[in-house]
């Protein structure tokens, strides 16, 4: 079962990476914009879902306010690009540091509680932040901020600008892959084991010599950074930010994405985001009530595959293995 899960994750990683490469090549060749930008958007929201999965699927903390950090990253990035300098590296660097500090401060508030109370506190924090931004004139209030300039990114191959959908897609792919790689690395360390132990039986931890607070705080800060860096990419894609980015719909959507893809798998949320973002766009062209359709799909998935899409793949793989095993014996 465990090995199958690892195999399923590896498979999905490869399929996603292969699809991304194919999309980049074909899209660039055909001069496509729509699909490349759609894929970029699903990567950005995939990063947000990734941060939710770190908390929910690994540590066992349901955050209903992860959009706070996503929105924070988006606004800060927009501000830096507009007011400070049109530099990708500078924006990502400042957002990383600032969100780590924000996450550290917020962790003292949120980690005082567990379970439902943790969910409500994260929800509350995000609502407060969203209201503050919504009412702050210097941040554009309810209109948000527009006119984020197109970026010039320095690479060893010369300056490239983000208005090229293929190039920007690659940049986002690289950024989200690095975030994914960092989380995977942490999962391969004893800290990752402690996270899983906290999810399984937090009270036991004290009797093997650890306070659960430390590892939880590390996870919370990491999740804040992953969400914020993903958010920082948003204004680069869209050219604007709005307070809606901090609203509950964004946080809630991220949780739905995680559940759809497979809780605790990390790659599941990315897959979930790709599918959900595509669905939304495709269904959105047929009907303006796409939320209803998405809701129905979500209900269907939760009932038929409670472990998400990755869970479905694992079940499928197990069946194939069992058949192979049978074939051997015959």
């Amino acid at each position, binding site marked *: 079962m*465990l090995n199958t899960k690892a195999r399923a994750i590896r498979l999905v990683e490869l399929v996603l990476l292969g699809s991304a490469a194919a999309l980049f090549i074909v899209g660039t060749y055909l001069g496509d914009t729509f699909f490349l930008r759609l894929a970029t958007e699903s990567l950005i929201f995939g990063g947000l879902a990734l941060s939710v999965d770190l908390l929910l699927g690994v540590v066992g903390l349901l955050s209903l306010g992860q959009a706070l950090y996503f929105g924070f990253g988006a606004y800060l990035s927009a501000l830096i690009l507009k007011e400070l300098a049109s530099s990708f590296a500078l924006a990502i660097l400042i957002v990383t540091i600032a969100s780590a500090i924000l996450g550290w401060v917020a962790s003292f508030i949120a980690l005082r509680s567990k379970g439902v109370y943790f969910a409500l506190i994260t929800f509350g924090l995000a609502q407060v932040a969203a209201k503050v931004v919504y009412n702050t004139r210097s941040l554009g209030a309810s209109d948000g901020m527009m006119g984020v300039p197109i970026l010039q990114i320095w690479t060893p191959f010369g300056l490239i600008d983000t208005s090229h959908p293929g190039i920007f897609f690659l940049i986002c792919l690289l950024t989200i892959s690095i975030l994914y790689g960092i989380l995977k690395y*942490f999962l391969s360390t*004893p800290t990752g084991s402690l996270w899983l132990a906290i999810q*399984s039986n937090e009270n036991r931890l004290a009797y*093997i010599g650890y306070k659960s607070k430390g590892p939880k705080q590390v996870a919370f800060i990491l999740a804040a950074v992953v969400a914020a860096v993903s958010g920082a990419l948003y204004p680069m894609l869209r050219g604007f930010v709005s307070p809606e980015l901090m609203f509950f719909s964004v946080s809630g959507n991220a949780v739905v994405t995680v559940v759809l893809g497979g809780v605790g798998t990390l790659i599941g949320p990315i897959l979930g985001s790709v599918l959900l973002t595509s669905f939304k766009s495709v269904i959105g062209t047929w009907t303006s009530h796409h939320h209803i359709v998405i809701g129905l799909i979500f209900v269907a998935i939760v009932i038929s595959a409670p472990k998400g899409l990755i869970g479905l793949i694992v079940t499928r793989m197990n069946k194939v293995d069992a058949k192979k095993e049978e074939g051997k014996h015959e």
Partner: protein
Amino acid sequence: MNNAHSIILEAKGLSKRFGGLIAVDEVSIAVQKLGVTSIIGPNGAGKSTLFNLLSGTFLPDNGAVHIDGVDVTRLSPEGRLFCGMARSFQITNLFFDLTVMDNLRIASQVLEPRSHLYLPLGKSEIALKRANELLEEFGLEESRDQLAGALSHGQQRRLEIAVTLATKPKLLLLDEPTQGMSQVDTHETADLIKRVGLNTTVLLIEHDVDLVMDLSKTVFVMAQGRKLAEGTPAEVRKNPLVQAAYFGEELA
């Protein structure tokens, strides 16, 4: 016997009240190094509360706990672990969603320097080695990759003791380790506890009086929150107070 150096764990006048109920009332015990010492008593005698006070799960209202002469009364459970004390639980308390190996590995992680927390698992060689030792010692090799939650009750109880031993404590508190075990498993566990007692101090709470009498060098008897008697198993058996409170007509 009165040599202070041979005493590893000492409780002085420990009391704990829950509302109007005095669960533990001015209990003093001294546990000598090595071998098995047991606390017995009828249900509701305050054994488990006493255990929770000794292990740092509860803070006492009065009294003090010393490990090797060091006052640990206000120390957290994880703090006490570093003083060499570890405990198991009456109700199996494992990381049920993790494999047997992961349970043991995580429990052994404290043996590693703290910096290893952020390095790949393979770098934590001491913990890995310790986990493998325990797998073998407790006969859990075949269940290595099974989820702890999927083990049989007897295996879970064994794993519970193994996890508690992971950090090589010098003082081991076992809360009814054979609870709910089959006869065969109970005997195996008794042998195991005896073996552990050769180089570790074991403090045991047990319902199974025969098991206790067989294993222990010293027995404390509790009833209604107080210490009723203490002594060797033979002495305790003969004590009329104990017979009245605990053994009933069986031994009288």
